[in-house]
């Protein structure tokens, strides 16, 4: 019987180290309290029915000591836990992009090169993988225990998270947020593969058009290009090279054009208006599926200058990339 999950990602050793520390603290205090309770209960057991204990003088020093020591310990735990968390929340820039859609009760995966998977995810080891996740219905949660990785997929927005597998193998993928009748059937496998095997897998399947190409098609379908045209005097701002850049908004605020911003600009265009453009864009809420949105994002990302180590560029040449410690 296993009592400890496999360590198969860069997060796992960090999470497990903190876990070990907390287990040590827990064991120490449980044993301390347990021993004291048992020893006192036996040593000071009542010897005659009407025996009464004498009052023990209270010590303010003792109260301070057992307030301050736990306080110090929990602060150590907090900073340690926060540092692990920061690692988990910041995707490195050169990660491999994968797009995930959750729906009752399956995981749909799209790779940038056009590969699609269902309840399965193939990733290379030694390479950060950045998931952009959306839900078509209720809240799901993408959970890979071997990676110590979990992220809720909340409808109405993108959930962005990342991991880097370290050990080739086949690992459980669970939905961890209760999502309805067949919640426990919303499971699958993550295959972490050696880079060479991963290349072989990429070459093997039928890829179809790339995700960006699919997004470009939707861009035409929804007539986005009539306003977001690449010419002077266009009614909407240009999208070329937009992704990842600072955008100046009306009122002087600036914001980085990330996936969340672009999504919001499609479904709720009035929320953040680019300086110099009138609020004329209609909302596309409910008109574009979650998968379609992800494709549009992939397309808009692909419009960014190839010089930047963007996701699309990196996907083209994975073998040349040096492993980067997050």
């Amino acid at each position, binding site marked *: 019987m296993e009592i400890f999950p496999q360590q198969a990602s860069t997060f796992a050793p960090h999470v497990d180290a903190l876990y070990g520390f907390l287990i040590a603290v827990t064991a120490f205090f449980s044993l301390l309290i347990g021993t004291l309770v048992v020893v006192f209960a036996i040593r000071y057991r009542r010897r005659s029915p009407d025996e009464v204990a004498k009052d023990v003088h209270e010590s303010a020093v003792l109260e301070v000591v057992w307030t301050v020591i736990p306080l110090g310990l929990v602060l150590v735990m907090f900073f340690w836990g926060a540092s692990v968390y920061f690692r988990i*929340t*910041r*995707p*490195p*820039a050169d990660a491999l992009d994968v797009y995930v859609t959750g729906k009752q009760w399956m995981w749909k995966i799209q790779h940038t090169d056009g590969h699609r998977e269902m309840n399965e995810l193939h990733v290379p080891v030694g390479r950060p993988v950045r998931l952009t996740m959306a839900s078509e219905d209720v809240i799901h949660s993408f959970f890979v225990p071997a990676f110590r990785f979990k992220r809720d997929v909340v409808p109405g927005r993108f959930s*962005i998270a990342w991991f880097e597998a370290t050990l080739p193998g086949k690992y459980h993928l669970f939905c961890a947020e209760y999502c309805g009748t067949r919640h426990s059937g919303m499971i699958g496998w993550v295959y972490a593969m050696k880079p060479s095997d991963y290349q072989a897998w990429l070459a093997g399947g039928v890829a179809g058009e790339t995700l960006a190409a699919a997004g470009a098609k939707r861009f035409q379908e929804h007539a986005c290009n009539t306003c977001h045209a690449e010419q002077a005097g266009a009614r909407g701002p240009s999208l070329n090279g937009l*992704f*990842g*850049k600072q955008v100046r908004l009306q009122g002087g605020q600036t*914001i*980085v054009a*990330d*996936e*969340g911003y672009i999504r919001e600009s499609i479904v709720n265009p009035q929320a953040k208006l680019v300086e110099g453009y009138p609020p004329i864009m209609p909302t596309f809420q409910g008109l574009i599926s979650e998968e379609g949105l992800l494709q549009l994002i992939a397309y808009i990302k692909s419009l960014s200058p190839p010089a*930047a180590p*963007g996701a699309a560029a990196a996907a083209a040449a994975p073998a040349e990339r040096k492993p980067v410690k997050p």
Partner: protein
Amino acid sequence: MSDDSTHGHPTLSAYFGVFAALMLLTALTVWAAFQHLGIWNTPVALAIAVTKAILVALIFMHLRYSARLTAIVVVASVAWLAILILITASDYLTRSWVPIYQR
């Protein structure tokens, strides 16, 4: 709670004064709403509303003449409302602080 603290009462003129002030403030807040105050429209409207609420509480509800415990209860309600709204809002305000896309 001492007896005289609960038995104080505002005078008639205090009641009518507060009533007049409330009416004036209502007119003021309507007038202010039509002015272009930039980001200040909402703060001004809220400041007027808070002033009106304080007047009602202090005079109409006799808070000014009540025991300290009552004041503590009122402060607690406002404090907890602030906790609910401000901490929830802090989540929304800081969501974009961590860049999830780095270039």
